[in-house]
Structures are given as structure tokens and as C-alpha cells.
């Protein structure tokens, strides 16, 4: 019998709150199915199972905050015999990360998420709780980004304690409601402080003529309806992913004092959250996707990230991050590596610059790329070659 556990979604995550089951005991699931929603400092995360089989039973009540690694459910593998009732051991009480709100009746299918009232912003978990408790979201004052209603806001509205005092002698834990910007800032601070403390960064920059990209995109997009058009950012993602194949020292994880290169290239896409905050979920296998598929994936990923619906694998899997402040008016950005990754590539805004081509000066569209990389894994020489490779790939967008 396999256990479906509270996932670790980054080095800074210690616990999460189970807020919704998307399956019920007896349901068949397969590898990659989204079966639960948990709330963390990173927001509401849809959690996939990596075990195929039948959901045998739930081990944790909805509404409970538990440490990373806590078994949440049992999944009986395909071909595995169903245990007789007498053989089924009673589930041990899950370790609670902190006393939590009184749990609603366990083991019942979760009701569908209530649609938010027009004009009311709310996290999916908050909408679900509001539906469950019969609360009109429009009557709840939100404390999330730009007034969005969070899980804790709904808890307060129904009179349940959002975060009861910790047991004597136990440090009080901060509640982590969905897209709570304060909580997200704590998570960002922890990860970035760790990165600056532990990772010996080095920084490089390289200016690239992206006129060929602009010309190619203009021609391609002219023949496409808006929902199929590409942005220049997708070319950046693809070229970084392809360059990672040739330069594996920038793609992978540094753990337990050693570097683990990754065969797969899962590019983390830095997404700014409205009102503040940042997440960098993965676009899986970015090196293998066509530009059209990559663009569709990026649109979906950005929309879900901003709506607080990231999937667990998207949080845990990025092997390198790409960040672009695009039109925000800066020409270069120097990123901080998100541990345990070992590199982040930054793209500034495209600017018009005089440029020498074939001995003549002319106006060209130029972008400044930067690399922040981990000196425990690579050196500046390799970093320079890596950036140059990205620049070279950007000269031939039709071959991406």
C-alpha cells in the first residue's frame, strides 16, 4: 500500500494545510492526477499523485495543517489485494504542525468550489470553505493581495480560530493562507536569505541583438489569431532550455554537498503576483516542447499562478529559472538563485541601440541577458559560453 504524502515544495516549506480532496475513497487514480489541494506559503497548490491505483482511505482531515512528509492517504497499487477489514490498521493520528481550526466532518467528498461572487477575489481554498460553511464571500473582508479573501479570512468570519495558540513550550507558527502576501514574503525571504548565505554566486551579462527574433515573431504572429500568438519571452525560455542540454552544469540541484545534474530541463518561469509576491513554477521539458506548445503552457502557467492554482510538481521540479522584467523599464536584472537550483538567467527589456553589423552601424533591438550561477558547480568561463550559446540560438528563431 503506497502512501500519498504532504509534498515538500521547496527547501523553505515545513508544513501545509490539506484544504480539499478532489477524489474519494474507492476512486481510481493514475500517475500525474491531481487529487488534493493544500495551502502553503506559496498559495493553494494542486497536488499530484505519483502512484497509480485505488484510493483506499484518507488519513488526514480536511483543514488540518501537517508537516511535510505526513501520509495523507493510502493508495492501493494496481494488482494489490484489497486488505481485509481486520487487517486494516487504524491510522495513526497524523502529527499536527500546529493546532488548527476544528476540522469539518472527515472522509466526505469535497463540495465543488463555489464560484466567487462577481468582483470578489478569493483563493480556491477560501471559496471552498465559504461554500462549506454557507458564507457569502462578498461579506468577508479580505486580507490577501489587493483585498482578496483568504482561507483564514473565511475562518475568522465563521468564528473559528485561524491560528490557536501553540502548545506550551512550542513556538507559535505563522498561518499560511493562500496568496497571503505576508506569508509569501516570509517564504521568499527564507529562500533568498539561504541562497545568499550558502550559494557563492557569480554574475555575468551579455548583450544580444534580438532583431531577428522580433522580425520572425512579427511575421509569424501576423498570420495568427491573438490566442495563438507568441511573445518574445517564449523564445527566451526555449533558448535557455536548449542551452542547458549543452551546458548541464547550469541545470540541476545542489544537495548534500554535491551537484546533481538533471537529464530533464524544467524551466522555472518567474511570475510576478499582482500586488506583490513572486513564484517561479516549472514548465516541464521546455527543451522538447514546440514554441506553440511552450507558449500555451506559459499562458496557462501564468494564469494559474496568479489565480493561486499551482501544481505541486511545478513548484518542486524547476531545474533552472528564467526571469524577465520585460517592459518594466530595466535593462538588466541580476537574479538570486532559488536553492537547490544552481542558476538563474535574467532578461532585461528590449531597447533600440546602435549596433555594428558587417562593419556598418545601424539601429538594432538589443537585450541584456544575465546569468547568476553557483560557483560550487561552475566557473565564469563556462557561464560565458552558456550565455553565448543562448545568444547564438536567439539569432535563428526559425530553428527553435
Amino acid at each position, binding site marked *: 500500500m503506497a502512501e500519498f504524502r504532504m509534498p515538500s515544495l521547496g527547501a523553505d516549506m515545513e508544513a501545509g494545510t490539506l484544504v480539499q480532496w478532489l477524489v474519494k475513497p474507492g476512486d481510481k487514480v493514475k500517475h500525474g492526477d491531481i487529487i488534493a489541494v493544500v495551502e502553503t506559503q506559496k498559495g493553494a497548490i494542486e497536488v499530484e499523485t505519483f502512484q497509480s491505483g485505488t484510493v483506499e482511505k484518507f488519513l488526514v482531515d480536511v483543514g488540518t495543517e501537517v508537516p511535510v512528509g505526513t501520509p495523507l492517504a493510502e493508495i492501493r497499487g494496481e494488482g494489490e489485494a484489497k486488505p481485509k477489514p481486520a487487517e486494516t490498521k487504524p491510522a495513526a493520528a497524523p502529527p499536527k504542525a500546529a493546532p488548527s481550526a476544528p476540522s469539518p466532518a472527515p472522509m466526505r467528498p469535497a463540495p465543488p468550489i463555489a464560484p466567487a461572487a462577481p*468582483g470578489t*477575489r478569493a483563493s480556491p481554498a477560501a471559496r471552498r470553505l465559504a461554500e462549506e460553511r454557507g458564507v457569502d464571500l462578498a461579506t468577508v473582508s479580505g486580507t490577501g*493581495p*489587493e*483585498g*482578496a479573501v483568504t482561507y483564514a479570512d473565511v475562518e475568522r468570519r465563521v468564528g473559528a480560530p485561524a491560528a490557536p495558540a501553540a502548545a506550551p513550550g512550542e513556538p507559535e507558527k505563522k498561518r499560511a493562507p493562500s496568496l497571503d502576501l505576508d506569508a509569501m514574503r516570509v517564504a521568499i525571504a527564507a529562500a533568498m536569505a539561504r541562497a545568499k548565505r550558502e550559494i557563492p554566486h557569480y554574475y555575468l551579462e551579455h548583450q544580444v541583438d534580438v532583431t531577428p527574433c522580433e522580425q520572425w515573431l*512579427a511575421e509569424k*504572429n*501576423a498570420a495568427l*489569431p*491573438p*490566442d495563438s*500568438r507568441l*511573445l*518574445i*519571452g517564449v523564445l527566451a525560455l526555449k533558448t535557455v532550455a536548449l542551452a542547458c542540454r549543452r551546458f548541464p552544469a547550469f541545470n540541476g540541484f545542489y544537495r548534500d554537498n554535491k551537484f546533481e545534474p538533471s537529464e530533464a530541463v524544467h524551466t522555472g518561469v518567474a511570475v*510576478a503576483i*499582482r*500586488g506583490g509576491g513572486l513564484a517561479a513554477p516549472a514548465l516541464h521539458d521546455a527543451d522538447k516542447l514546440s514554441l506553440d506548445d511552450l507558449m500555451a503552457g*506559459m*499562458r496557462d502557467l*501564468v*494564469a494559474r499562478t496568479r489565480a493561486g492554482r499551482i501544481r505541486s510538481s511545478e513548484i518542486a521540479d524547476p531545474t533552472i529559472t528564467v526571469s524577465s522584467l*520585460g*517592459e*518594466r523599464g530595466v535593462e538588466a536584472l541580476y537574479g538570486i538563485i532559488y536553492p537547490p537550483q544552481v542558476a538563474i538567467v535574467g532578461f532585461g527589456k528590449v531597447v533600440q541601440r546602435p549596433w555594428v553589423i558587417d562593419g556598418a552601424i545601424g539601429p538594432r533591438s538589443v537585450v541584456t541577458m544575465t546569468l547568476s550561477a553557483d560557483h560550487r558547480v561552475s566557473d565564469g568561463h563556462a557561464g560565458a559560453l552558456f550565455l553565448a550559446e543562448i545568444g547564438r540560438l536567439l539569432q535563428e528563431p526559425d530553428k527553435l
Partner: protein
Amino acid sequence: MSDTDIRNVVQEELNNIAPEVDMATVDPKADLREAIDIDSMDFLNFITAIHHRLGLDIPELDYPKLVTVDGAVAYITARLNSAKQ
């Protein structure tokens, strides 16, 4: 569609992208990228929404004409009127 109807559509679709913004307080002549903090993905989503809602395929070359609320309303009005003729 009247000018008011088109303005309402523009404001509704921008509000879908920036739900926390009170569009009534946005200067209709202000650059939307600054006024309501939208990026290239948001702007493409806005263009896509207008396409789906009004059947208006706006080419990239015309994007600069739609970077303010007034500009977007004027552009869409002109395109819809020319389509009728």
C-alpha cells in the same frame, strides 16, 4: 454598439486582468501598462478577450493604438464601424 457599450467591454476585460483596480479611477488617457500594471502577457490576454468577445482580430502592428482606455475605445469603435460599411 455604442461608445458607452464599447467602453464598458474594455473596462470589464481590463478588470478581469486587474480585478483589484477600480477602472472608474483610471485616467482614460493613461498608459495602461503603468496605470494598472499590466505586462505583455496581460496585454495579449486583453487583445485575445476583445477578439473572442467582439470578433475583432487586432494585428500586432495596431497594439500601440490600444495602450490607453480612450485609445482602445476609439480603435475598436472605428474598426467595428468600418466592418459595417
